[in-house]
């Protein structure tokens, strides 16, 4: 990036609830500073003004569910120096990826003339399944403090500080007593950090909205969850929500039924 020119920021939307891009507008204390540090060049939810690409940083929200969006994503990638996915839809396919499993079952008997075409219409896929992604920010929704950190890191040419350890570490940091040892089913041991371990602080088990951590051991956790009273159907469902398409969760869910 040239000195003296503010880097251009673009925010793109695919299939999503808009919550992750709202996180940027929810940075009430930082928003005007961010708007001073970067040029908000394309952000339709916030402004009708459009500055042409290429863009230094693109934030991409949402998953790919239509052939048109699959094509559009490539034009986004071509215009973006750095592409960061924000949230579970963009990073994992989101809750709408639940349709993937239904369609897979329905179509196993079918011989596709154009499977590539049909797949993009009958599945919800993450951005990384289509184009190269420079950084993935987890969460349903993302944590706005992490968003500011990731933006600051890329604008300053350093690595973002966004650890891939489990939510358990965040409970320890927060000083929250373990809910799992009290018999409350909790996905914290296999879930990616970033939220700040909110659910256990509210007397509830983590429900995995930040997706799997690096190298999770889900089968071991499932034995523990069974001991907390969860049946097979509950286990199948608990891994199959906002990050259902992520391999460790998908496999563990499938082990307990379909």
């Amino acid at each position, binding site marked *: 990036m040239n000195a003296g020119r503010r880097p251009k920021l673009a925010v793109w*939307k*695919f*299939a*999503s*609830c*808009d*919550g*992750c*891009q*709202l*996180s940027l*507008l*929810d940075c*009430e*204390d930082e*928003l*005007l500073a961010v*708007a001073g540090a970067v040029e*908000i060049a394309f*952000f*339709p*939810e*916030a*402004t*009708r*003004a459009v500055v042409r690409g290429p863009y230094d940083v693109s934030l991409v929200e949402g998953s790919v*569910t*239509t*052939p048109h*969006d699959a094509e559009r994503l490539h034009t986004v990638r071509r215009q973006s120096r750095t592409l960061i996915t924000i949230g579970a839809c963009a990073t994992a396919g*989101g*809750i*709408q990826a*639940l*349709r993937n499993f*239904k369609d897979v079952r329905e179509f196993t008997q079918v011989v596709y*003339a*154009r499977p590539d*075409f*049909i797949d993009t*219409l*009958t599945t*919800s896929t993450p951005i990384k399944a289509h184009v190269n992604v420079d950084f993935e920010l987890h969460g*349903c*929704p993302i944590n706005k403090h992490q968003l500011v950190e990731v933006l600051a890191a890329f604008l300053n040419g350093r690595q973002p500080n966004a650890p891939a350890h489990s939510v358990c570490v965040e409970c320890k940091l927060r000083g929250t007593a373990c809910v799992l040892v009290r018999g409350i089913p909790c996905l914290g041991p296999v879930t990616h950090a970033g*939220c700040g371990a*909110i*659910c256990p*602080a*509210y*007397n*509830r088990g983590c*429900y995995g*909205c930040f997706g799997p951590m690096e190298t999770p051991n889900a089968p071991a956790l499932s034995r523990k969850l069974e001991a907390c009273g969860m049946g097979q159907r*509950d286990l199948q*469902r608990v891994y199959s*929500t*906002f990050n259902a398409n992520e391999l460790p969760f998908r496999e563990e869910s499938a082990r307990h039924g379909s």
Partner: protein
Amino acid sequence: MARKTINVDYLARVEGEGGVKITFDGNTVRDVQLRIFEPPRFFEAFLRGRAYTEAPDITARICGICPVAYQMSAVHAMEDALGVTVTPEVRELRRLLYCGEWIESHVLHIYMLHAPDFLGYPGAVEMAKDHGDLVRQGLELKKIGNEILEVLGGRAIHPVNVRVGGFYRAPTRREFAPLAERLKHARDIARATVRWVAGFDFPDCERDYEYVSLGAAGEYPFNAGHVVSNKGLDITPHQYDAYFEESHVKRSNALHSHLQGRPYLTGPNARYSLNAAQLSPLAREAAQEAALGETCTNPFRSIVVRAVEVLYACDEALRIIDAYREPEQPHLDLTPRAGVGYACTEAPRGMLYHRYRIDADGSILDAKIVPPTSQNQPSIEDDLKTFAGDWLDLPEEALRVRCEQAVRNHDPCISCATHFLKLEVVRM
């Protein structure tokens, strides 16, 4: 006759993806199409087979701007199916949570999405260059709404503390104490916001809407009441399906809803016009000062009504926090049973209907969700049909902006409106 088409390919400053196309034939508006191309996400389909306890967290993901509305309609519908009523303490906390969402969502719309239209800016960031203090004031107010959601819900977007039967944990009085101070500050900003937006220049556009909202509840409506209209409708949410019907319009990835064949409007203007007497004295005073009267039929003035509702939400949140005692039980312990449950609650942008049929083991058999934006779509198009002919003398760009503004009057949430459509598979 000269034909002229105004095309807004991509509506900015709304939640989700949509466009508008207006065809003029001479001075008459020939056709208006609000086109929604947000891809469908099929929530009703994958709710089938899920546990009734999962509905609040799953349906929250329909909309990141108003997740509390989805959680509230979901828990009330499930409690209706199970035949239980929550404690008065839980009821108050739910009103408080809704106050947080109304403040956050309305202030986002007032300051960042709608005000730039009145003051001639493409967005709030550009507006901040000339009106920095105003935008900062709006951000501060919005932040206080989010703080309510964070203390009570755990986080502002997709709160985690809501469950069927109540809350996972009731915050302590001590956790709420700092919020009370913040809310007094918020109330002052909200009062100033009403004065600010009341001074905008409003086009002279009145319409004879059929206004629909919750009402007859003895309170300004969030979670309870009958479904009422200014043209005599008075039903319970149980009767909703007998009166309201959705149809699919080809050009749009969303459904249109009608009341016995008639278009109708939900949202702040409807709520206000049907429930103004239930506002707090301070909010009523501010409404009077803003010359709102007992009803408001100018859609452009909805920004004033939103500001009055923000003031009310600050007042109401303060009342609830002042009177708050930690409940012994934050939630009911529930046992599933087979049944059907219905609920309407008031999302910031209008009434949100949920219906669920559940099995004896608590699994969802089917779900129906009607968000406010699909209810308002026919009226949004009718607004443009009614008004746009008078704006033809405006220069092209001003005409386009005015038409966009007329859509933004209703704070349409396109993400909400497109969660349901049937999957269309293209085979080549």
